[in-house]
């Protein structure tokens, strides 16, 4: 049996030198006793042998073990040294041991690391600085007292340095201290004394703490599981907790008992202003702009609840050709403009190839709001139904009145139905001019998104070609009328 005497202050270097020596000497984990200085056993006369590091010996061990050991060594559990040596020993044979988190040694290691991490996290959270007199000109100085469970001060000091760079600070704890003066971070493992003093800002902080608490939802267990009582004595706000809890029930009851009071005077004044505003119309706007504004407020069918916005038509108000699609898609719904998504680019390419300038035509949809359903995290287009199309015809008719196009191109069955009330399939009415009232001509073709839905191949190529031919026919028609 070999005894190693250690300081036991979470110093990784001390353990590493000893462990390396033991490993080189092939000392079995069960033959090592890790003794902390001042611990009962060494009083009974089994002094530890000082370990002199064997500089020539090389022991290879993975980066992940070193990181784990550096964290676990900060734990105050006296068994940490032997646990780490045992794992180090086993790692020589079982290279992937650390990945087996269900192994008793590994799960104990993970537990230690978790506790250290938690303690370090609590230090970041519950340290409270108090301002004290400055020692450097132009730099304010703060001190704090914290009582960690483990040897985490030097491990956690970097966090405070990165955060509180422009002030001097000192964190004193019974397990060491850390201080920053703007140029260097000094840490010590020696127990420090509790600094005295008061800070006027604590009072403002207590005011905040007391008022952000909602007495109608007391959950004491939830509070204490995250902020255990052992931390309370060094947190200025914690003294308020018992009274806040005790008074909560009464405050809620008082609130419920109180009658609703008369609104203050300015409320009536404000309400009158709102009422005045509601009467404002769009009368003085240009006709197309007026319809656009009115459409944006449309609630004629439930689709408006789930869509971002009404997507109104786009193009010159004297366009000779008007294209009517089905409804806005995902991108159109976000952009607030028709035909800007994938189907829009198919449309753009086809019109350009047919010699129709997009800037010269008016493009709109039969239904102005995006109808969709959720699939996972995506919004999937759903076909609008008859009542929705019929309700939305209200706006389409007004667009037609203002634009007064000579040629109307229905892209797909929905648009055809919206324009004519006829439920025929696209293939039955496609590809020839259909006279409408007021001397307009209707032309029917597929919707560009139909082309996108077809699988790559002959079928898609054929559909593309036919769509292209239809648009060329529209272009020819536009020259003849």
């Amino acid at each position, binding site marked *: 049996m070999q005894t190693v005497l250690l300081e036991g202050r979470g110093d990784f270097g001390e353990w590493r030198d000893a462990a390396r020596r033991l490993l080189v000497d092939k000392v079995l984990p069960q033959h090592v006793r890790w003794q902390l200085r001042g611990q009962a056993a060494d009083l009974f006369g089994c002094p530890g042998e000082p370990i002199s590091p064997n500089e020539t010996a090389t022991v290879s061990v993975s980066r992940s073990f070193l990181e784990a050991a550096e964290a676990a060594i900060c734990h105050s559990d006296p068994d940490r040294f032997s646990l780490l040596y045992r794992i180090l020993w086993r790692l020589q044979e079982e290279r*992937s041991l650390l*990945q087996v*988190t*269900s192994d008793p040694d590994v*799960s104990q290691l993970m537990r230690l690391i978790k506790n250290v991490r938690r303690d370090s*996290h609590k230090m*970041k*959270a*519950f*340290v*409270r*600085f*108090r*301002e004290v007199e400055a020692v450097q000109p132009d730099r304010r100085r703060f001190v704090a007292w914290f009582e960690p469970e483990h040897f985490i001060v030097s491990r956690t000091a970097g*966090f405070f*340095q*990165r*955060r509180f*760079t*422009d*002030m001097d600070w000192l964190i004193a704890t019974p397990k060491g201290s850390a201080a920053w003066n703007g140029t260097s971070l000094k840490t010590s493992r020696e127990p420090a004394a509790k600094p005295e003093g008061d800070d006027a*800002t*604590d009072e*403002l*902080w207590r*005011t*905040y*703490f*007391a*008022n*952000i*608490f*909602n007495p109608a*939802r*007391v*959950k*004491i267990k*939830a*509070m204490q599981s995250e902020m255990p009582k052992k931390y309370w004595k060094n947190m200025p706000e*914690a003294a308020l907790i018992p009274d806040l809890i005790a008074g909560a029930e009464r405050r*809620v009851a008082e*609130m*419920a008992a109180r009658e*609703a009071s008369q609104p*203050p005077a300015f*409320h009536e004044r*404000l*309400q009158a*202003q*709102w009422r005045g505003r509601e009467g404002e119309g769009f009368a003085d706007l240009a006709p197309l702009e007026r319809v656009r504004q009115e459409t944006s*407020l449309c609630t004629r069918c439930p689709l*408006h*609840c*789930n869509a*971002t*916005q009404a997507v109104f038509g786009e193009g010159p108000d004297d366009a000779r050709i008007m294209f009517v699609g089905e409804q806005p898609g995902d991108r159109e719904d*976000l*952009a607030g403009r028709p035909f800007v998504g994938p189907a829009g680019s198919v449309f753009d390419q086809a019109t350009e190839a047919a010699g129709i300038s997009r800037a010269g035509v008016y493009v709109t949809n039969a239904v102005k709001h995006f109808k969709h359903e*959720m699939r996972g995290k*995506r919004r999937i287009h759903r076909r609008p139904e008859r009542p929705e199309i019929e309700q939305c015809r209200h706006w389409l008719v007004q667009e037609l009145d203002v634009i007064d196009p000579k040629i109307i191109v229905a892209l797909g069955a929905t648009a055809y139905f919206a324009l004519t009330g006829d439920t025929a399939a696209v293939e039955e009415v496609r590809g020839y001019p259909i006279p409408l009232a007021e001397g307009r001509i209707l032309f029917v073709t597929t919707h560009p998104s139909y082309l996108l839905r077809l699988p790559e191949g002959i079928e898609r190529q054929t559909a593309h070609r036919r769509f292209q031919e239809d648009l060329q026919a529209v272009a020819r028609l536009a020259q003849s009328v």
Partner: protein
Amino acid sequence: MRKSLKERLAILSDAAKYDASCASSGTVRRDSSKSGGLGSTEGSGICHAYAPDGRCISLLKILLTNFCIYDCAYCINRSSSNVERARFTPDEVVWLTIEFYRRNYIEGLFLSSGIIRSSDDTMAEMVQVARDLRTKHGFRGYIHLKTIPEASPQLVEEAGLYADRLSLNIELPTDQGLARYAPEKKPAGIRRSMDDLRLKIEEAREPTFTGRKKRFVPGGQSTQMIVGADGASDATILGSSARLYSGYQLKRVYYSAFSPIPDSSRNLPLIKPPLVREHRLYQADWLYRFYGFSIEEITSAREDGMLDLELDPKLAWALANRDRFPVDVNTADRETLLRVPGFGTKTVKSLISARRHRRIRLEDLSRLGVSLKKVRSFIVAEGWSPHRALDRSDLRAAFAPQPEQLSLF
């Protein structure tokens, strides 16, 4: 007489306590070690204190003012309420943030406001706070601004340059609810603002030709919905959330159990908030975002569209879908393991890593921190089979909480 800073802090933090969101996570890492200013963000946020209501205090959550021209029934600051009114100047908010931060009370600022004069006037003052913190004081802590409805896109864009996160509360899950309880709020306007922000965030993520990305709302956007003030079911609420997540890529939807407020509107219930319901909604939201569940799966267990208050939604789903169990922990794929009640994402990760090296037994699971009581009816492990546990008609009773004597007061 003008109220002291302390008195106004009391009023304006009290007015902010109904807002559920307080997270300070999800932004970029940055610190002041090189720049020499104050503050840092290191990925995960820190809760600096907990109030007895169990909620963490991470940010200084206050209102710039609680004067408001809107009259939303559920809100303590509505124009018809007789609550005491106060306002801070932007400089005062900046001072409080910096001084609180220096003492390590907080991670940063969560600033909201009632609407005074106009949306733009109010928003401009909030932007001023964020701008001064960043540019005058070199502040690198977390800033969350609550966007004012109908504020101009230019102001929102400027806010995005300084803030880590922007949010805009949708408040109620349906447009009808909003029309009834918050008549001045326009749901379409709120959606359009969220949409605008989503597009701007996406645009900023595109690297410019110099390869640098613009820093713009790195913590994304979030919203809050009040639960229990109107009659909306959990299915309606979660459906709304799903639309918000997918439509506007929100980072979080917060659920806030409607809390009775002093001097409350006659239209509203004066009951204690359904805190368990709020908790179940968060659990369901989690299943949707991280576990691959669809909203329909989560809410289909009951016909009224409400979540089971006694059981967590994953357990409720598993009990309603017993044919999908037991799952063999030594062979099942990740997606299947994620659906086992009692397994979290971390457990599943360690499980998959550990089983590459040895067969998993029941006691291995307890060392991974899994509650065996919860999990064992649903899994097969080395040396363990639940036999016919899944056929038991009293399986639900084994998980449901014991009946409790209700408080008589």
